[in-house]
């Protein structure tokens, strides 16, 4: 047995040192130069320093399934010192970040792609020389860090990054997600001792490095206390050109203003604080045809092609429905407290209602402990379902997030009594040990299929999609409690209908396609392929089978539209596939070299490459020092600070209060009664 310790209760230690200057009670704080500025202090005390404030502008241009995003982070230094700002922020997990520019006054400096260590050295040299410099590093596919050095007193600097993304057709429409906050992650493992907190710069998050999550300090930005009000305002604008007449455009996450510009065009505007993910969904008017999108972009020595095919839904089931064994795994850790656990309960109750009496099921709940409802999966009879409903209704969320034992229990305990075995994993994915969990799924999946259901205002998309991919299942997000039934209904259609399997792709021309093997498809999901071809010529054909029925599709490549950024998307998929092969035993240094080569070629930020910009005009006088400060983030909306360790436990009973009040009432009552006696006599 491995003994595991983890940090969750300790995780928000960051905000211990944080307070608003306005009306600050702490005498140790420096004098307030203005209202609303944020002061930060290292976890071990030390001097207070002022963090730069940050505003974010997001512009998303959507053309069909393609998204080009420009994210502008405006850092403002209200203090009288030279500052370095470090901000940990999220992006969609499939975002291909390929551009950085920094605006200082009227000068615009473009970023260059370098290997990660080289970029860091360039940044550090420029920082000590007093030059303004910006660095974008990738911590996880969906977590990035901006470092910006030498922001002068009273100065404002803009750092803009751009990325390319392809949206997936899902169920009946497209879903655009822009994450706005890195939720506090549970960090399992034993701390690597000794750990020194080196100031407050990058790598000084609230968590310490552990044997399981060695980069924990880099992905755990401090959290601003909810009582201090939200920070980091965000303005977001979507220019949507769907290419098809639109039936519905809506945001389940935010209040938005939608302006109609044409039958397939909309402008969507949102303004809020960065405390939950932004989600926009749209649905074209229904049509019977197989939907297809082909984009191509010329490249040196050939072209890149992106292909999205929506197979028509299966004909009414010709075969009897197969009995299933479904294991529901539900996360009841502290991060799920509040609206999230209510959504999870509702999702589970819905799922229980979809079981047939001949299906088998079990429920596993976990926080830092794992607990299964039944010893093994049981038939979904009335009694078992009643017990399960009671179990679900009494779930409450608290404690750490030790996901590994729960995952292994759910994947391992196959009764072998049902032809199909599915594991439905309901969680917000707020963990830092994604790699360890992915490894466990690779090892113990067996014949099971893993489906993730993302809950809450800021689920960890990297975990949700990565786990489903390795588990050969699919992922679903529930943003808004009101859409729980609809989303779970769509998931169950996928669970119940046969997959489109054995997919093969034929290109007339030689093609380098990523991923090399096309995964099985669930109903309502598209085939998405990216390939590099020598020339746009000939046909591409796709063949597969669904429950014995053949599926065939072909199209000439020439019909494709020209699309910008297709090469970048291809490179991003190639990098993801290469890194995944590493999890299955590919040589680490060979993978690294291949990733670096593709990333440098396509100007892409990756695990091994970063973008760095340096303004060669020196600004900070050598005599003046530079203070580092890590920018805190908001606690995701709906999270309960006390449940993730934001405050010390409450430790008083109402006993003394009740006794005092009781005695007082007793005395009062007696007096009233006695006075009445006197009145009578």
């Amino acid at each position, binding site marked *: 047995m491995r003994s595991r*310790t*983890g*940090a*969750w*209760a*300790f995780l*928000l*230690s960051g*905000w*211990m040192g944080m307070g608003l200057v306005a009306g600050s009670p702490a005498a140790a704080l420096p004098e307030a130069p203005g209202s609303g500025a944020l002061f930060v202090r290292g*976890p*071990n*005390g030390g001097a207070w320093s002022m963090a730069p404030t940050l505003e974010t502008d997001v512009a998303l241009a959507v053309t069909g399934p393609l998204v080009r995003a420009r994210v502008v982070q405006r850092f403002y230094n209200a203090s009288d010192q030279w500052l370095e700002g470090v901000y940990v922020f999220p992006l969609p997990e499939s975002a291909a970040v390929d551009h950085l520019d920094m605006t200082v006054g009227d000068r615009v400096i473009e970023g260059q792609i370098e290997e990660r260590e080289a970029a860091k050295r360039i940044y550090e040299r420029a920082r000590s020389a007093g030059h303004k410099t910006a660095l974008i590093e990738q911590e996880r596919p969906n977590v990035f860090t901006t470092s910006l050095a030498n922001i002068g007193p009273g100065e404002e600097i803009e750092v803009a990054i751009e990325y390319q993304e392809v949206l997936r057709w899902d169920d009946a429409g497209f879903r655009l997600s822009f994450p706005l906050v890195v939720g506090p992650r549970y960090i399992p493992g034993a*701390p690597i*001792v*000794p*750990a020194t907190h080196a100031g407050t710069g990058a790598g000084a998050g609230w968590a*310490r490095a552990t044997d399981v999550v060695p980069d924990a300090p880099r992905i755990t930005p401090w959290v601003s*206390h909810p*009582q201090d009000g939200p920070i980091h305002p965000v303005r977001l604008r979507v220019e949507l050109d769907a290419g098809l007449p639109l039936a519905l455009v809506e945001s389940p996450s935010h209040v938005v203003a939608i302006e109609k510009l044409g039958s397939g065009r909309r402008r969507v505007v949102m303004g809020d604080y960065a405390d939950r993910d932004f989600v926009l969904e749209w649905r074209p008017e229904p049509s019977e045809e197989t939907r297809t999108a082909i984009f191509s972009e010329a490249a040196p020595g050939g072209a890149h092609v992106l292909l999205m095919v929506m197979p028509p839904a299966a004909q009414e089931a010709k075969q009897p429905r197969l009995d299933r064994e479904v294991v529901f795994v539900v996360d009841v850790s502290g991060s799920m407290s509040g609206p999230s656990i209510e959504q999870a309960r509702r999702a589970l109750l819905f799922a229980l209602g979809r079981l047939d009496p001949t299906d088998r099921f079990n429920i596993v709940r976990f*926080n*830092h402990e794992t607990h299964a409802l039944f010893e093994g999966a049981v038939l979904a009879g009335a009694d078992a379902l009643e017990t399960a409903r009671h179990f679900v209704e009494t779930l409450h969320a*608290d*404690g*750490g997030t030790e996901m590994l034992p729960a995952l292994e229990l759910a994947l391992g305990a196959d009764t072998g009594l049902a032809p199909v075995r599915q594991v439905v994993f309901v969680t917000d994915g707020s963990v830092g040990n994604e790699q360890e969990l992915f490894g466990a799924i690779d090892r113990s999946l067996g014949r099971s299929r893993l489906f993730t259901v993302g809950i809450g205002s800021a689920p960890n998309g990297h975990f949700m999609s990565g786990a489903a991919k390795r588990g050969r299942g699919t992922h679903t997000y529930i943003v808004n409690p009101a859409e729980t039934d609809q989303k779970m209904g769509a998931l169950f259609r996928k669970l119940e209908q046969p997959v489109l399997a054995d997919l093969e792709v034929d290109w007339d021309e030689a093609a380098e396609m990523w991923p090399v093997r096309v995964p099985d498809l669930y109903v309502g999901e598209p085939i998405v392929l990216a390939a590099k071809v020598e020339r746009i010529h000939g046909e591409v054909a796709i063949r597969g089978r669904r429950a014995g029925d053949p599926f065939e599709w072909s199209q000439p490549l020439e019909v494709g539209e020209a699309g910008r950024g297709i090469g970048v998307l291809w490179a991003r998929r190639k990098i993801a596939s290469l890194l995944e092969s590493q999890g299955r035993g590919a040589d680490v240094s060979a993978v690294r070299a291949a990733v670096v080569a593709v990333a440098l070629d396509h100007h892409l930020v990756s695990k091994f490459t970063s973008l760095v910009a340096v303004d060669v005009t020196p600004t900070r006088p050598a005599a003046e020092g530079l203070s580092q400060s890590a920018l805190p983030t908001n606690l995701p909306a709906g999270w309960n600070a006390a449940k993730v*360790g*934001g*405050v*010390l*436990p*409450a*430790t*008083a*009973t*109402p*006993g*003394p*209060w*009740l*006794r*005092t*009040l*009781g*005695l*007082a*009432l*007793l*005395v*009062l*009552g*007696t*007096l*009233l*009664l006695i*006075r*009445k006696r006197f*009145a009578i006599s």
Partner: protein
Amino acid sequence: MRGRSWLGLAAVVLGLGLLAQGVWIPAKAAAAQVLLDRAWERTRSGDERARPWPWADHRPVARIRVPRLEVSVIVLEGATGASLAFGPGHLAGSAPPGAPGNAVIAGHRDTHFAFLRELRAGDTIWIERPTGALRHYAVKATTVVDERDLSPLAESGEAVLTLITCFPFDAKAPGGPERYVVRAEGAGAGVGLR
């Protein structure tokens, strides 16, 4: 005149009710400790599934002894409202009591952890683990902090015992923002007698 009589009676009944509740809380806390103590002894003599009462879902993880104050309380896993009613709770995620690292235990100021106000620097605290192993801590400091100040939870890797309760001790109403923190540092280990 009738109105006043009803009012008086209502006040007496309500007062008795509240008083009963107010007495029930410490009574439950004390009774639970008696049962926990028995279960703890059975656990120590090898019965791994010993439960203090049949429907108990809180696992005892350690016993705190303070010889000078003749204190002996059983600590439960988890510092949630439900577990704290029965005994002090060990914070999930902090080091196990008696192991290297910062073990954090919270308890109610008016029941199990009322003795914290009597602790003085230099006092000896013993932590007894389910295996019977003992670890010996010496009180170093007592401080009062805001509930949002998580510095008492900081992990240095050294053997530290952190005891937390609400402050001030004599406040009547629960829910105040201040916490009283006792920090004791590991001073050695011993082997308990079965």
